[in-house]
């Protein structure tokens, strides 16, 4: 691509034409300070238009900062009027990506603008993006393309990293008010990504199963109270919410597990004996983990095991017949 370096009048630059703009950052305070202090290190890229005027390919904030500082002229790199839009987009993305890490929304804008030139070929799009310093695989491209459908308020939270991209996209499918409520819960409690996914999934499924809006689930099932409970710390709140949702979504499984733990308590196994049931109670293999440091301890464990085999609750556990408990 061919540039010429030149000094142009700032009032000949049309900053309202955002064809090549990919950044959503509007604050220029930091740049104003820096340019004022050391000058303009990296000149913006402009494209020549008719009548000796220019549109911005890259450097909207730099131009705005210089304008604020009262500069009448600015050094710039100029691409010719004949340069293709694709090449200008590439320049814009590369120039931004080389200077800083693009946030998710900027990545989405870049992909959205570039994808016009790659029809549905996400593999080629990914390869080209990587050459420009935008490290996106085809899976991420798919997600980035979906961001356009997300409400602005959520987009902001995704851009600032308050909400992970995958969660933002899931919330984007919900009714706006509900999505915001969930995003607030995530913001407030900051659960792990898996727990965020679980909370949303369980709420969604309960909503579909019982034909109730998702917002009702938040309001009804003590989630709101839990979040505002001053007695609980963040982890306790997350645990309580997950438990409550699980109880509504899987009542029989939770009932069974509760009975199982009640029986286990009655058997009163010491910490040195750990009974492990089959995963999800699906298979039939139980295992026991024994912890001992010497023969005497082993003998003690053995005595307990001998008693345990005649304990009626142990038989119930092994038979998975917990109903009459």
């Amino acid at each position, binding site marked *: 691509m061919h540039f010429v370096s030149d000094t142009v009048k700032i009032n000949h630059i049309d900053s309202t034409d955002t064809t090549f703009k990919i950044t959503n950052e509007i604050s220029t305070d930091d740049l104003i300070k820096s340019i004022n202090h050391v000058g303009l290190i990296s000149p913006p890229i402009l494209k020549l238009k008719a009548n000796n005027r220019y549109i911005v390919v890259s450097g909207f904030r730099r131009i705005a900062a210089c304008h604020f500082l009262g500069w009448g002229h600015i050094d710039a790199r100029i691409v010719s009027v004949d340069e293709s839009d694709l090449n200008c987009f590439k320049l814009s993305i590369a120039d931004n990506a080389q200077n800083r890490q693009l946030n998710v929304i900027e990545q989405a804008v870049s992909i959205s603008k570039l994808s016009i030139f790659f029809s*549905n070929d996400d593999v080629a799009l990914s390869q080209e993006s990587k050459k420009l310093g935008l490290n996106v695989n085809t899976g991420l491209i798919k997600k980035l393309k979906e961001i356009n459908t997300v409400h602005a308020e959520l987009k902001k939270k995704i851009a600032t990293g308050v909400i992970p991209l995958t969660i933002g996209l899931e919330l984007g499918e919900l009714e706006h008010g509900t999505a915001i409520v969930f995003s607030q819960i995530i913001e407030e409690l900051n659960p792990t990504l898996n727990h965020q996914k679980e909370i949303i999934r369980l709420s969604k499924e309960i909503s579909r199963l019982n034909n109730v809006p998702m917002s009702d689930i938040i309001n009804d099932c003590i989630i709101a109270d839990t979040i505002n409970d001053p007695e609980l710390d963040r982890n306790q709140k997350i645990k309580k919410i997950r438990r409550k949702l699980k109880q509504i979504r899987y*009542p*029989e499984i939770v009932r069974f597990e509760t009975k199982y733990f009640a029986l286990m308590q009655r058997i009163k196994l010491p910490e040195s004996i750990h009974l492990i049931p089959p995963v*999800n*109670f*699906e*298979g039939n293999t139980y295992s026991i983990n024994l912890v001992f440091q010497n023969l005497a301890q082993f003998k003690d464990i053995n005595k307990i095991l001998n008693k345990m085999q005649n304990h009626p609750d142990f038989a119930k556990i092994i038979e998975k017949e917990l109903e009459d408990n």
Partner: protein
Amino acid sequence: MKITDLYIDKEVLDYPATNVICDRLNTSFQVVNNAEDVYGIFANVKTPVEKGKKTLFLTKNKGKFIRQCPGTDYYTCCNYMILHFGIFCTMDCSYCILQSYFHPPLLQFFVNHKDLEKSLDHLFLQKKLTRIGTGEYTDSLIWEEIYPFAEMLVSKFSRQSHAILELKTKTVNIENLLSLRHNRKTVVSWSLNTERVVKSEERQTASIKARLTAAVKCQEMGYPLAFHFDPLIIYPGCEEDYKKIIKQLFANILPENIVWISLGSFRFMPALKSIIEQRFDQSKIVYGEFIKGIDGKMRYFKPLRINFYRQIVSYIREIAPNVTVYFCMEDDEVWLKTLGFTPSEYGGLPMMLDKSASRHCDVF
């Protein structure tokens, strides 16, 4: 059968079955060099399942016509054989595994019937009691609308004494069967479910009443019958609904004409969940109390399955204490707690079913 796009593999253009199907469908077609040409059409299709149900590809089965049913180690399998003559289905059940099984999912009918017949001849020569069905990768009888395939099979099976053919369906396309000499070597079977499940989850299938009427006609023509309560779906009030269907079944069909009844609760590979959510947005079947089973499939929590099966078994036993009931892919714990025995007490599940087949179909 509503086919909007017909593709024909150039290798099978002159096959007799190709000509019959083209005449029946009376639609334009495109000749392709290979399967990839057809698969390519699906690359950017947003609703591949919908398209696949209207796209027919006539081709050759280049692999084996006769295959072992894919079971898993942990759950008890019945050693069933599959006669692989076609793929996919024109009906549309929410729970259908075929939606996520084939990539892309499209109707394929294998017209190299000479090869198929050779495979069957080879099987018959082994003189080993075999249960073989055509309803694993497709519905056995949807194809009757465009090709009298069952006629060839029923006649072929009638001339030997070691293998039985099971035609498993949710259609009522039995007219071609009624006049055939079957020699009791073909079992016609239907999947049954509650009215509610049929209505909400089984699009374009025949009603239960129609299925049972068709079964009665087959019974009158001396065909041995079988019924599959699979997938059993748990929902509030389901026990009563299943009881009603079971009563309806035995009000129409004599227990002694039933070779077997299978029971299988709804299970699915995790990938199917999002397909069902997308394609059947009113369906709630994926929101049961599922856990991941030992074979990686989602299954109802075992204590729930056991309680539910106990009820279903008791409804059947009340009316037909001697009919052979078996579970599709369950373990000994389920068998013991619901039927009171494990298959191994009878030599294993394959043996149990073989014996029932011997009794009803005169095979040995």
